[in-house]
Every structure is written in C-alpha cells, then in structure tokens.
C-alpha cells in the first residue's frame, strides 16, 4: 500500500501526541493538586491586618470579630466599627490605622480579598460546625501564626467529605463526635 500521510499520522503522530498530552496532564494534575484546591492562596489585603498580632500575641478571641460563627451560616468579617472599638485610640498614628480610619470616616467599602470560599452552589454553615465544638484551626489552620492569612487546607468537596466520614481522625480533641451528613442536600440546596 502506498504510504500515505494518513498512515504516518495514525501510526506515529497520534500515539505520540496522546502520550505527550497524557503524561503532561497527569503530572501537572497531581503536582498542582494542592494549588488548584486553593491551598497556599495568600492574597495581599488592602490593609495589612495581622492575625499574628491580634489573635496570637494579644490573644483576642476569634469570635470577638467573627461574630456570626455560632449564630448563623456566615462567620462574618468584622464591620469596621468593631475595629474602631479599639483603634479610635490604639496606635492611631500608624499608617495602616490611618488607612482604616479613612475607610471608617468616608464610608467607602473596605474590599478585603476573600481567601476561604466554598462555591456558590454549596451552602456551608459555620454555626452547625462551631456549635458542635469544632475549632477554627481544624479548617483554617494556625491563623494565630499568620501575618497574612493563607489557605492551608483544601476546600474541595472531597476534603469536606473526608472529615464528614471520619471525624475522629481529623478532630481528635472531640471526645464524641458523630459523622457529618454525607447526603447532597446538606450542602447542595
């Protein structure tokens, strides 16, 4: 038979291409797994707020600012007037505090860069978890040591389900903990 280009293509080019694509895809997929799940995301914030200082060194409780965490679905980022509770006097000459002051007085929205987010079709409820005794660090990592907030755990459905299926493994500090819901409607309404 005449050696046509089609022959060459099918015998050599196609398998070669497939092989190259597959190998690169597989390697990239597994190597980038953590990064794709958002782990390591550490955006720069409009005001350089340091959790290490406030939550770590000064020991302010998470719930002082993130007030919704036991009451409802959202943990709530503190509204600026909570910051001003202290910062009307505390360190009011520092440049970051002056920035904060400007936001407070002008009424302009303070656009924090969101770090932890579950997709919009999934409904995550903080109060259900916190009221069962789960510590903030179990999902958000050691925030008290972070100058800039970084996402340390993967927020994919698989990661959530791992803990729902074996809560004792991930939450050793809780003496009795039931398995979390594993059915769709718990999160996907």
């Amino acid at each position, binding site marked *: 038979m005449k050696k*046509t*280009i*089609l022959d060459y293509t099918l015998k050599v080019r196609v398998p070669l291409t497939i092989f190259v694509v597959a190998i690169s895809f597989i390697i990239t997929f597994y190597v980038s797994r953590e*990064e*794709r799940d*958002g782990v390591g*995301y550490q*955006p720069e914030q409009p005001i350089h707020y340091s959790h290490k200082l406030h939550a770590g060194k000064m020991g302010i409780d998470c719930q002082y600012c993130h*007030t*919704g965490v*036991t*009451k*409802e*679905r*959202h943990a*709530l*980022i*503190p*509204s*600026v*007037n909570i910051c001003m509770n202290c910062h009307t006097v505390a360190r009011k000459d520092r440049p970051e505090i002056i920035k904060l002051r400007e*936001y*407070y007085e002008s*009424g*302009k*929205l*303070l*656009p*924090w*860069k*969101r*770090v*932890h*987010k579950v*997709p*919009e*079709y*999934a*409904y995550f*409820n903080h*109060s*259900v978890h916190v*009221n*069962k005794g789960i510590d903030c660090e179990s999902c958000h990592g050691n925030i008290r040591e972070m100058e800039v907030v970084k996402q340390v755990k993967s927020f994919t459905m698989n990661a959530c389900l791992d803990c729902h299926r074996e809560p004792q493994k991930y939450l050793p500090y809780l003496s009795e903990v039931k398995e979390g819901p594993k*059915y*769709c*409607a*718990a999160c*996907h*309404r």
Partner: protein
Amino acid sequence: MSKENKKYWKSIDEYNKKELPVSKSDEFMEGTTDEFDPSKLDGLSRRKFLALLSASTAFAVTACSDYHDQKELAPYIKRPDGLLPGKPNYYASTCSGCSQACGILIKTREGRPIKVDGNDLHPINKGKICATGQASVYNLYDPSRLQFPTKGKNKVDWASADSDIINKLDKIVKSGKKIAVITHPINSPTEKKLLDEFKQRYSTAEVYSYELFNNCNKKFAWFKSYGSPEIPSIKWDEADIILSLESDFLAKEANHVEATRLFSSRRDIMKSDHFNRLYVAEAGMSLTNTNSDYRIQVRPDAQYDFVLSLMSEVVKRGASVINVDSSVKKKLSNYSLDSFVTKWNLDAIKVNYLIDDLVNNKGKAIVYAGDVLPADVHIAVNLLNEILGNTKLYDYDKAYVNTGRQAHLDDFKVLINSFNKSEFGAVIHYDVNPAFHIPSSMNYADALKNVGLVVSLVESENESTVSDTYTLPINHAFESWGDAQARKNVYSLRQPVIAPLYNSRQREAILLTWITSSSEAYNDDMYHQYLMESCRENIYNKMKLAVDFKSFWFAALHDGYVELNKQSTKKHVFDLTAFDLRKHSSASTDFGLLLSRSYFIGDGRFANNGWLQEIPHPISKAAWDNYAAIAPSTAKKMDLEIGDVIKVSVGDNSVNLPVMIQPGVLQDMITVELGYGRTVIGDAGKDAGINANDLLNQQSGSSPWITSGVSIEKTGEEYELVSTQEHHPLDEDFVKDFHLKRGIIREATLTEYKKNPEFAREHDEELVSITSEHKFTETKWGMAIDMNKCVSCATCVASCDVENNVPVVGKDQVANGREMHWIRIDRYYSGTPEDPIVSNQPMLCQHCDNAPCENVCPVNATNHSPDGLNQMVYNRCVGTRYCANNCPYKVRRFNFFNFLDHFADSYYENEVTPLVYNPEVTIRSRGVMEKCSFCVQKISEEREDAIREGREIKGENVVTACQQACPADAIVFGDVNDPNSRVSQYKKHNLGYLVLQNLNVRPNVTYVAKLRNTHSEDT
C-alpha cells in the same frame, strides 16, 4: 397502464431495461477522486490554522487569569443595629394590596424585604394572606417604578415642584375653580383626617373615592335595611348551611383570607360530622363554586326572583322566626319557588334540598349575596336572613368599617362634564388610575386636557399619568408609614422596613407639605409624626392604658396592630320600608354579561407583576390573559372555539375578546374579568389581556357589573390564549373521568364515606418491590394535603414562587408548557360540560421513596437523602431531562433558557429586581432541572437551630412556604416517623391516599380524599 403500475424512467437505456450503469451502486463514479492528491495540499489548511489559534488562545486565557481569585468581601462600615447579615429580621406591617388591610410580617435579609407572610398575631387574618399579598413584595423592586419627580418629560426637584403646585392651588381656589382629589377608598383614619385638613386648607377641594369593584351596593342595601352602612362580618365557621348567591366569597370578596380559614374549619375530616354544606347559585364558574356541594345555575338578573321565591316558600311553610308583615306577604304571593324552578329549568330536587336545609337550620345558616348584585337583591337577602333568624351569624364586633361614600360612573359622568366646562382647575390623582378604570367611551383622558393642573402621585407610570403636568413618585407600602382600619375591632399599623429606594416621598407627606404651604416644610419624618399624633388622639387617649404613649406605640408597631375595645353595638332592626313592594321586572333571556375582578392582579394595579400574571386562573388555567367565558352549549350554537375573537357590545360600547369555553357557565351568559389590557405599564404587563372596562354598565341605578341584553358577534379573528393545562374535551371517551379511574382524584359524598369508610383505599393494590426497601430510621419528612380544606386559591403557588426564586417565563413560554411553578393546582372536570363537578389538586414533587427520576439520571444529580427528601443537585445536572421524562407526576421543571435574562431587554437584569431573591435558595441557570425541594432551606435552618440549642430536630418547627401561606391550613408538613405528628395522623387516616399509588413509587405526599356533603351517595 394503471396508476399502480406507472413507472418512471430517466433515460432510454433505463426504459429499455438495460443493465443499470455501475455508477448507480457506487456513491461516486469511478475516477472521481483520481486527480485528488493529498500531498499536493497546502501545508497549512484553514482547519489547522483554527486548531492552532484556539489552542493557543485557550492556553493564554488560562494562564492570564488567576484561578485562585475569590473576589472581594466587603463588610459594613457601621453595621446597622439589630441587623445580622445572614439572619432574617421580621417586621409587622399592613398589606396594601387591597382595602382589607390584612396584617403582614415582612421578612428582610440585610435590610431588604424578600418575603411577605401573614402576621401570626393579627386577629383577622391570623398569619395568612392571599396570593396577591405574597407576590406583592416584587412590586417594591419593580423596575418600572418612577425614580424622581417629573414635569412633563423633564426631571424636576421636589422643592420647585412643591412650591409651584402650592402656588397654583392657591390661585385656583382664589379664582373659584375647584380641585378634584381622586383616591381609592381611604381605610386609614389618619389619611382621612389628612384629606379633611386638605379640604380645609383648599376650600374648593373635593375628594372622589372610587374603586373598580366595590361593595357599594351592599353598603347601600345595609344602610337602607338597618340605618347604617356598617356591614357585619359573617361567622362562616358557625354556618351549617351556606347559600352563596353570585358571590365568590372564598376568593374575591371582603376578607376572603378570613372567610377561607373559617369555611375550611368546617371541612375538617377529624370532625366529619361537623361538615358544613355549601350551595352556590350563580351564572359562572367561580372558585367558590368548585368547592360547593350543590350547584344551581341562576342568571344574575334572576337572582332577585330567586331570593323572593325562596322567601315566599319559607313563609308558606310557616318557618319564619319573625312576624312577616302582610304587605310583604302580599308581594311574596306573586312568587313561587316551583314556578321559578320550572321557568328556569332548574333541578327541582336540588332546590328542594336547599329550601329544606334553610328551613331546618334556622339560625345556623347564612344566605350571602355577592357584591356585584344590585342593592335590591341585598335588601331581599337581608330580609330572608331575618326571616330565617340567620342574623345570629352576623358579627358586628368585627364589622367592616365604612370607607365613606364612593364615586360611581354617574358621578364620574358629572365630573367629566365639569372638567369639560372648565369648572375644575386641578386634578390630583392620589395613587389611582382613573383613565384606565373609567370606560374609554366616557373620555376621561380627553376631559383632563381641560384641566390646568394635573398632578399624579403614583409609584409607576400608568394610563392617567400621560396627561400629567407633574408626576410625583410615591413610596411603596414597605417604605411608608401608615395605619388602616378595615374592621371595627382592629387598628392596623404600617411601618417602613426599608429606606426609600428612589427619590420618592410618602403620598401623605406630599399632601402635608401642600397643606403647610411651604416646600421647605417637608422633612422625611413628617408623616411619621403626624401619624403618631393622630394615633395618640384617636386610639391611645381613648384606651386609658397604664403605659405611656411611647411604649404603647412601640408595642403597637411590634405587633402590627392594636385590638380595640369592644364597642357597644346598638341592636340592628330591619327597616321594612327598605323592602321594595313594587313589582319587579322579570329577568331577560337574551345574552347576559357578568364582570368580575381578576383573581390575582386586582383591578389592574398588579398587571406588571409577572408572578401574579403567570399564576394560572384557578378554573380555566389560562395565564397572562383575560377572555370571555361562555358555556359549551353557547359555543356549539355559535360555532366558536377557544381563541376565537368575539365582539361583545354593551349599548354603544364594544370590546373584542377571545372566547374561553368554560364548562359550568350558564348558557347565554358571558363572564369577563377586568383589570387586564393595561397599555402604559412596565415590560411584563404589556400586551397582557384586553381592556374590557368599556363593558361596564353605565346605566344609572343598575349594578355596573351586570348587564342583560348584550350582543355578541363573531369577528373571525383569532387570539392565542395560553393555558398551563390542556383543555381536555370532556366528551372524549379516552380522557373522560380518567382522574377518577386512575385514582388521582378520590372523592365521595359524606354518606358514602359513612357507609364505606375505606372507599379511598379499597382499590389500592398490594405492591411488591424487587429491591429491598430503604430504611428511614430518623426524621422522615412528609406532607399531607387535605382536599377538603383546599379551596384552590393558589396562594401556595405564589408563596413557593417567592420563597424559591422561581422565574417568570412569559406568555410565549407558557404556550410551550415551560412554566416553572414548583407547585401547581391541577383542575379536573367530571360530569357533563353543562353541569360539571370541578376537582382541584395541588401537585408538587412527591419525594417518592422509590423515585423513578433518581434511577435514570446519568450523572446522579438527583438522589435520596436519609431524611426522605429527593435531592436535586443543580451543579451536577447536565440537562438530559430523563428525570422529567420518568416522573409520573410531571413535577420537574427544566430551565430551557436562562430565564433570568430571557426577556429581550434582560428583564431581571437591572439594579433592583435581583434584590428580591431569597439568598438561601440557589438561582438556577439554563440547562438545569428544578423541582420542589420540600423547602430544604427551612429544614436546614431547623437543623441549625437544633444544633445551636442542643436539642433534637422537631418536625413541627419546619413550616414549608406553601404550608405557611395556605389560608385553609390544608397543607401539613412534618415528620412521618413521629407517630404523634399531624402529618402522621393524616397518613394513617382512612381517607388519606397516595396519587398513582399502584406505580410503587411510594410518594411522601398524602392526599386526603374530598368529601362532598350531599344528601345521598351520588355526587
């Protein structure tokens, strides 16, 4: 050559039957591709180029964007006190959809109202409102709302508009010309006071209150009968026998939310000996009629004769509880029930039952005449109730407060005449639309041109604002202060829950500014202060309470109403002189016309509310349109089909209307609903229906909604009427009574039930599953719908729409069957087209244990939760629609379009409409299947509360949107694994059945068979 043997040939060769050329069997002739040499092709083809281009673009795009970016999150700068983002707040207020002023509870999220339910504490509506009230939250975010005051086509500011108007009004008064203030009936005592002050300030001002559908005939009759126009409310729950004359009291008249609750409390299967019996005598097929036990067809102009015939029979039997005057007896001798039955060809047995029941249940029955009937019928009914002692059921403590004398078409004729004679210098449209409501033949809009100053205080543009000098936007009810006193025993308050969205002002505050004569006098708190003062004077001071006014005021706002002390009612004595002893002309037999209001869009003010337009008519299931409903016999006689346009003429006025063949309408009668055909309106309301206001009866002295002697004429045109249900021809054997044969609707009479209590379940089959049953050990959610209580008012549909962000699809998509209601009311006919029995059934996702939809989803987007819910995971759905195919109840709705921007100019895509969405429910995109979720967001809320409070989930704490809305309490939801829950009682009851039980899908919605309270076993 015969026809069959005729052969065709293309060439001589073929004709001579030579061998078919070889080329006929090959696709291409030998040698066609000989010259094609792939190696001679260009190195780069267009195909290759595109492939390269798209691959590189894809790489570039993915590389350039940060897939990590989760956007921003901006908190409040100063969080408003009492507002927790993510938790709803509830505010008590008063509905403004109609004049009944039901108490409402507005649910807000982050400061914006997203759901309206009834005020649970309110003594009249007790936590329920109607479908219009449920969907009224949308009107706050209506994109057609006016945003700033305008003078003609130019934007102006309030200050200059106010000062100009005050100036002009003063000049008009000085010149002796009059000022007309046109309003809807004012049920607010403070507003009444305000209008009086306005009249004092501008001495030539006159106030005209009107309403397209009013109860003035009844008020006048009551005034004549008892000396006061105070109409009592009816104790429907104490009535054993109800005779409703041309009255849709369960859906259209007075406070039908209250009436439904009271009526349905007497259709409780747990107390089946206590059922009431409803007789309906009317010409059309109304919602009340579908719930009746006996139907009698009587023309509206023959109702007077009917009442008098009944009266004469009662008196003849000596059953009167009062002394009947001899003059009355003399008049009654001209009437006889038997001759009435013969004349109008009624079923003598039914009428006999009626008269027997009325006579045997004196003091426990009620004869109730509809608002559309003329005053003399009401007076006759009053006398009949007196004779039967039924006045015991009149509740004067909760009487309807008289809103004062209203303007009728006669008064408008005089007014329009005065306009044309330039006797009026100014007209103020106080949140009204007279140019639409007044028949166009009276030329109101033209007459306005002779008035110098026309000011409209409206929320959106309407037909009356086109001739405006000034158009001033007013606050929506949710942005306003106010009060209302629709009933004698309750003073309701209205408070604003949201700061005005636009540069609008409260309409009362605008008048107040004009009264104080200076545009600077206005401040935002003006009417609030005025209201507090008026409340202090009229309510607080009269109540002699121990608390101070401020505490009283805050408590009143918290509750939403103040219950007033019982006032001593003087004894109501029937004034016999009211009863007209003269001979009445008998009813005609030519075509009669009956006008009634729309079920959902009011008198047209809600025409832009897509949700309300799309809820299908409870009987005909037509949406987005009105029509002329005629009897099947009339249609056959005139050779008309659904959609044919006929010209209906009343006197000199005529309107072209499409025909709807409505089984149950009396022959030679036409019923039409008004409120449609708005022309100056937002995008949703355009081209919705036909303006039939020209058909109002302008003859003085007659009821404007009833005309006899109309003529109809075929025009040969056609108009598309869309319906959410096919029009099953009743006489087609295949579909006739299939709902009874397949056990979808199971009905019996009370007598049959007593004889055979298991009738609802006796035809159920023993079911065997080939798979092992799923065990539900903990909470299992189930629902029961009591068909005895359900009146098919469709409030559940409206509530579900609002709660679950169900999109409005528009008329063209409803024509394709793509309406998105998660719960629908199916309406079935049985019997004959002339005298049908109508059965209704709310149908929603049954959350089958053995769901046929779950098995067939190729991507497992729908499956079952351990608490019995059929879950729908929107993000997984690829849009195969196999599940909808498999669903035997056809309750799955598919998003064929991205309905959020399906309308040509992206109807939902503006800065206000998306604010109405419930943030707890996902917005579905194109290509995704959706269905009732048993309000899983409310179940999740209850789980959240249970975990926070450290307790178990309580089934009765979860109230689905449909359950919360149902005025009849027909829907019950809860834990079927709890033997004490209400829903378990219904599930166990022998009247509880499952629809399409024999399919072994094991639905979790139990329907309770309807029992009609007739005398025998025949329905």
